[in-house]
C-alpha cells in the first residue's frame, strides 16, 4: 500500500510547485487553530482514559447483542455509573465470545443467556458468582404469508414448527454466531430431529437486530428474543408465528471471572456491577423498561428467585 501514498504525495507536490511558480512565497504551514484543536483533542482522549487502579477504573461488561440492541443497557448502565462512579465499557458480542472474554479476564462482568454453556464455565472454575437477573422469552418470527403454515397449527411446539419449516423448505435465517439465541436455536433443531442446511437455511453471523432485518427482507423465519423483536417490530415485515412454548424461555445470568485465576480484572467494579444488576433499583428499572415505547415489558426481573432449570 505504499504506492498510492506516493502518488498522493506527488499530487500535493505538484500543487505546491505550481503555487510557488505563481509567485506565492509563503511556505505551506499548519494553520494554528487546527494544530491547537488536534492537541486539545489528544489531551481530551488522554484524560478520558483512567489509569490502572484509579478509583474510577472502568468496568468492562461483556454481554449479548440482545441486551444492547433492545436498549436495556442504555438505561441500566448510566444508572449504575451515576450510583457508583464506575465508568462502564460495554462490549456487545455473542454469548460464546462474552463468556470467553470473561474467562480470559478481558471483561470484568458478563451478562449472558446460555445456561448450559454458563454451567460449563462454572464447572471449570473460570467464572464464578453466577446470579439470576431476568428472563424473557424467544419467539418464532416469520413473514406475514407464513409459507410453512405454522400459525395454522396453534398447538404446535417450537421444535415441531422448525420441523415444518425444514419440511416445506421455507427460508430461515440463523444467527450462526454461537450466541445464546443461536445455541437455543440449535437445541430446538436437535429436538426437531433436523440437521439444518441447504438453500433455505441462511446464516447471518450477525447480531439479533441485523438478523431480524435480513429475515424481514428475505421473507424468512427466524428465532428471536422477544425484547429485540419488540424493539425492531415497527421496521419489520415479520409477525410472531409461535410463542409460549416453555422450551422458548430465555434466562439471563450475570457472572464474573475468578480473580484468583485472572488477577488483572477489576474485582471491586465487577462485583459492584453484579450487585447493582440484582438490586431493587435495577430490577425495578428492568420491570418497567419498554412498557412505554412497546406497550409491553421486554424483560421480567428475576433476582432472588429460584433457578428455573
Amino acid at each position: 500500500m505504499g504506492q498510492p501514498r506516493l502518488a498522493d504525495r506527488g499530487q500535493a507536490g505538484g500543487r505546491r510547485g505550481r503555487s510557488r511558480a505563481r509567485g506565492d512565497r509563503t511556505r505551506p504551514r499548519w494553520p494554528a487553530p487546527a494544530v491547537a484543536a488536534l492537541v486539545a483533542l489528544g489531551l481530551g482522549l488522554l484524560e478520558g482514559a483512567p489509569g490502572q487502579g484509579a478509583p474510577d477504573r472502568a468496568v468492562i461488561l461483556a454481554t449479548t447483542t440482545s441486551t444492547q440492541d433492545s436498549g436495556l443497557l442504555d438505561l441500566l448502565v448510566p444508572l449504575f455509573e451515576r450510583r457508583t462512579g464506575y465508568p462502564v465499557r460495554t462490549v456487545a458480542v455473542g454469548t460464546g465470545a462474552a463468556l470467553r472474554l470473561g474467562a480470559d479476564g478481558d471483561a470484568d462482568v458478563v451478562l449472558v443467556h446460555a445456561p448450559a454453556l454458563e454451567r460449563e464455565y462454572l464447572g471449570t472454575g473460570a467464572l464464578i458468582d453466577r446470579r439470576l437477573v431476568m428472563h424473557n422469552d424467544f419467539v418464532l418470527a416469520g413473514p406475514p404469508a407464513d409459507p410453512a403454515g405454522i400459525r395454522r397449527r396453534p398447538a404446535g411446539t417450537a421444535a415441531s414448527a422448525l420441523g415444518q419449516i425444514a419440511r416445506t423448505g421455507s427460508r430461515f435465517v440463523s444467527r450462526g454466531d454461537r450466541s445464546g439465541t443461536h445455541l437455543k436455536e440449535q437445541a430446538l433443531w436437535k429436538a426437531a430431529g433436523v440437521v439444518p442446511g441447504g438453500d433455505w437455511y441462511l446464516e447471518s453471523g450477525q447480531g439479533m437486530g441485523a438478523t431480524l432485518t435480513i429475515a424481514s427482507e428475505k421473507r424468512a423465519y427466524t428465532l428471536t428474543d422477544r425484547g429485540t423483536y419488540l424493539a425492531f417490530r415497527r421496521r419489520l415485515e415479520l409477525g410472531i408465528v409461535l410463542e409460549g412454548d416453555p422450551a422458548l424461555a430465555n434466562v439471563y445470568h450475570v457472572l464474573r471471572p475468578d480473580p484468583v485465576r485472572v488477577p488483572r480484572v477489576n474485582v471491586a467494579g465487577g462485583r459492584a456491577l453484579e450487585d447493582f444488576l440484582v438490586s431493587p433499583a435495577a430490577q425495578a428499572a428492568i420491570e418497567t423498561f419498554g412498557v412505554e415505547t412497546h406497550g409491553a415489558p421486554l424483560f421480567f426481573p428475576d433476582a432472588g428467585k429460584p433457578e428455573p432449570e
Partner: protein
Amino acid sequence: MALVGDGLRQAFWLLAGGDADVFGITLRSLEISGAATGLSLLLGIPLGVALALGRFPGRGLAISLVNTGMGLPPVVVGLFVSILLWRSGPFGFLEWIYTPIAMVLAQLVIAAPIVTGLTLAAIQQIPDRFRLQMRGLGASRGQLLWVLLREARLPMLAAAMAGFGGVISEVGASLMVGGNIRGQTRVLTTATVLAASKGNFDVAIALSVLLLAIMFLVNAALTWIQQRRAP
C-alpha cells in the same frame, strides 16, 4: 502471543487442508472486490481524465467532491446503499439487498472516487509543456489522450491497487449491505468479524493472515508489472 502462534498454525492448516468454507470465502472476496475494482476503473479513469484535462464550470467543486470521496467512510456508504436497496427503499424491487450485487455496488461507490482522484493526480503530474509540445507536433485529441494515459500508466496502476486494497479490506459496508450470509455474502473481512465475535480468535487470525497474503500477492503482481515496464 500464544494466540498469534495458534492463529498462524490454524491458518496454515485451513489453507493446506483446502477447507471448503475458507476457500469459498476467499474466492468470493476476490470476485466481489475484483468486480468492484474493475467497474471503478471503467468509471474512474474516464472521469479522472475528464477532470484533469477538461475546463468547465463546477470543475473545482467536482474535484473537491472526488477528493472528499476518496476518504468516504464505508459504513456511511453501507447505510445509504442499504436504504436505497431495502424493500422499503426506491430500488427495493430489484431484490438486491443481501446479495453479492449489493456488495459490488457499495464497494464500487467506495473505490470509484479513489480511482478517479488518483487518475486525476496522475494526469496532472504530466507537465503542461508536454501537452503543448504534443499539440505542437500535430497530435490529434485522441492521440494526445493515448500518450497521456501511457505516460500516466504507472500511477494509474497505483490507483487500481489502492482501489482494490480499499474495498477488499473494507468491512462496514460489506456487512451492512451483504448481511454476512454464510455461503452467499460472507467475505474475508466479515468472516473475521464473526470469528472474533464468536470467540474463535485463532480462526480470526487465520482469516486475517489470508487477507494480508492476498493483498500482498495482488500488490506484488501489479508492482512487478509496473517495475518491469518502467524505463
